[in-house]
């Protein structure tokens, strides 16, 4: 081997080494790409813990390391204004009380609460189709969504969440808001159907103001969120399935100017029971802690 060839080989070797070292030092996300937040061992341990407490994992877990941030939101006043403008055009009569304003049109009433919640009540209910409760879910959704679009009650960034049917013939369709592909569970639209009539729509819509990348942090893993849920709920007296676990934003409804929403892991148990685990602190998100007057 001549010296020139040896030099070439060494140049390639050192270039490769420098690239590798440079990656570790200067590429902050590189480490993240090579890491997983839930190892196979963690997953097994989590499943054992869940099973011991009568919970059974029926979904897969996102095992990658994820980061998130706070999202600043404000009640969607402009969208609210558009809806109410439509009521005024229909000749609605306006009555005000302490925490709500009612817009009464001929066969529908919109009640706007100070928190931003809008409740649209149809009297009598709107018949959407023949044999409505008997329709398959996809068709039922299509009809409801067409109605919402016609009524200008279908905001941008809406995503179907789930449907609930009761034995008494009540159907409720749940939609939630999304922002840059992340669900905002607090932004909700609910459609209430009684037998074959749409009777009520409830809309609590938010306007994302900005994300706070300066406060971007690594979130707890899905496995840790499940452990925290079991810690806080305790063992279940009867077997319960964990149907889904997903990362999104969540907060309570506030009668406020604007607020920050933390990322949460939303855990779905059977019977459409949802729990929200703060993805930064690991605490279960219940009623928001607003300081109240001392009892």
């Amino acid at each position, binding site marked *: 081997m001549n*010296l*020139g060839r040896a*030099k*070439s080989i*060494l*140049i390639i070797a*050192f*270039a490769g*080494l*420098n690239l590798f*070292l*440079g990656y*570790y*030092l200067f590429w902050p996300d590189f480490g993240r790409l090579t890491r997983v937040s839930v190892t196979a061992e963690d997953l097994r341990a989590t499943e054992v813990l869940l099973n011991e407490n009568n919970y059974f994992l029926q979904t897969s877990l996102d095992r990658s390391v994820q980061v998130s941030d*706070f999202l600043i939101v404000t009640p969607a006043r402009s969208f609210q204004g558009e809806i109410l403008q439509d009521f005024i055009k229909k000749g609605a009569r306006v009555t005000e009380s302490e925490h709500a304003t009612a817009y009464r049109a001929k066969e529908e009433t919109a009640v706007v609460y100070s928190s931003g919640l809008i409740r649209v009540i149809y009297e009598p209910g709107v018949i959407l189709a023949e044999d409505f409760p008997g329709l398959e879910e996809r068709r039922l959704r299509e009809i409801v969504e067409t109605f919402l679009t016609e009524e200008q009650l279908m905001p941008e960034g809406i995503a179907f969440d789930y449907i609930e049917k009761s034995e008494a013939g009540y159907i409720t369709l749940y939609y939630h808001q999304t922002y840059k592909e992340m669900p905002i569970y607090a932004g909700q639209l609910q459609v209430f159907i009684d037998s074959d009539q749409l009777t009520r729509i409830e809309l609590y819509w938010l306007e994302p103001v900005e994300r706070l990348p300066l*406060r971007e*942090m690594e979130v707890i893993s899905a496995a840790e969120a499940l452990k925290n849920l079991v810690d806080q709920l305790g063992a279940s007296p009867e077997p319960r399935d964990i149907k889904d676990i997903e990362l999104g934003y969540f*907060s309570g409804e*506030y*009668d*406020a*100017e*604007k*607020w*920050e*929403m*933390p990322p949460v892991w939303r855990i779905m148990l059977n019977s459409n029971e949802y729990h929200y685990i*703060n993805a*930064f*602190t690991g*605490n*279960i*998100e*219940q009623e*928001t*802690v*607003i*300081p*109240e*007057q*001392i*009892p």
Partner: protein
Amino acid sequence: MMEKIKSILLFFLFGLSLLLTYQLWYGEIPAQLLEEDVSERLLVEEPRPLENVIMPKLIVSSVEGDPYVFKKGEIGYESLWEELSFSLQQISFYEAVEEAMPPADSKKILTYYLQPELPVGEGLPWLAEAAFYAELEMIELYTDNANKWLVLSEAGNNHKTNLLLSSEKAERFNELFDEALFENKSRYTRLTNEQITMLSGYDLELAGSIYVPQESLYMDEVILEPEDLDHDLILKTFFVDYNMARIIEEKDGGLIYTDGEKGLRLTEVGLEYSSPRKETGSATATYPEALFNSSSLISYHGGWPENLRLDELSLSGWGRTIHYNAEWCMYYAGFPILAKQPTKALFNDSGLIYYTRFIFTPDDVIMIGEGQKTAAMWYDALEKAVTLFKDQASESENVLHLEEMRLGYVVTNSSGHYRGEPVWRIKISGETFTLQADQLNLVDEEDLL
């Protein structure tokens, strides 16, 4: 030429690899990461020692005729209390109890009403040599021509302990009673059941010792300043990592910080905090420990300003919650500044459950309008309060209990100023009435801060 370039490149890459390896091995942690890892040291106020946590509710002097009353913020109050506190810290208990009973012809010259109670005994600043523990609700100073005695009354029973003071300590008390102590002071009356029943025309019973001025008092109307809290520091005292806390901006400009477990509301005039999950904890701290804990809490979360007095410390609870309840009040010239929301803390072994802090201080006593108001006489105020009570009572009670009757200030906000308005605060059988001190009109609680 090519070989030369290769040599230079190889040399450069070799050097770079050494540098990068060194950086990886020994490199410094970036500053922003370092900041996150190291807990920040907070410069907060030190808690007050136990000797400075408790101060009497009232000191009543009956040296000559009708009593004089000394309250927090009045001239003479501090020196009278410090002398007693110092004596109790220095006293040799076993020497003092000999022949300690004051003779029948001795005269009571000072009465200290202690609320919260004063803990005394081994391991405490007061009567540390005593082999017993007691919580005192009252201390009286008796004298004959030659000696002075302290009579200590325990809370919750009728047990009394008598202490004979050494001549040196007795002399120190004598020195306090100079003419300046009583200069410009009004005499007070200690109310009796017969007196209040006769004057009000209703069957009234006292629920404790109440002293009222014998003559009309002049009270300054004052401009108040809300406490200027360092919001950033306050936030750090409640949240170890406040990056985890989210902010809710209220319509009235208030800011709420919450991490899902606890919440803090900061407003222009104060703060409210709650951590409801700690409610179910137990409260095993002893009374002296709880006193010190209360001092630590208020000092850490905002500080303990001068003229703020601990008015109450009690063990209470509801449901599965057992906690200590500490309440402080600001005083100006002997009168309490009664904010609508008190400065109050509920705590147990798990920590702070609730905390509200609304402290207003007089801003150099700026005179407004007519300046001083003449407070109505106590019997007129009492009659008005009893009438109001009867008007609103759903069922008439045979005997009413007078629980509180005092002059003070309430906080109002008018024409851009926070004002301290003189009032009579009267509590009858659980109902509190706030009356304008001069006109005796009922003050609407909605207008208060």
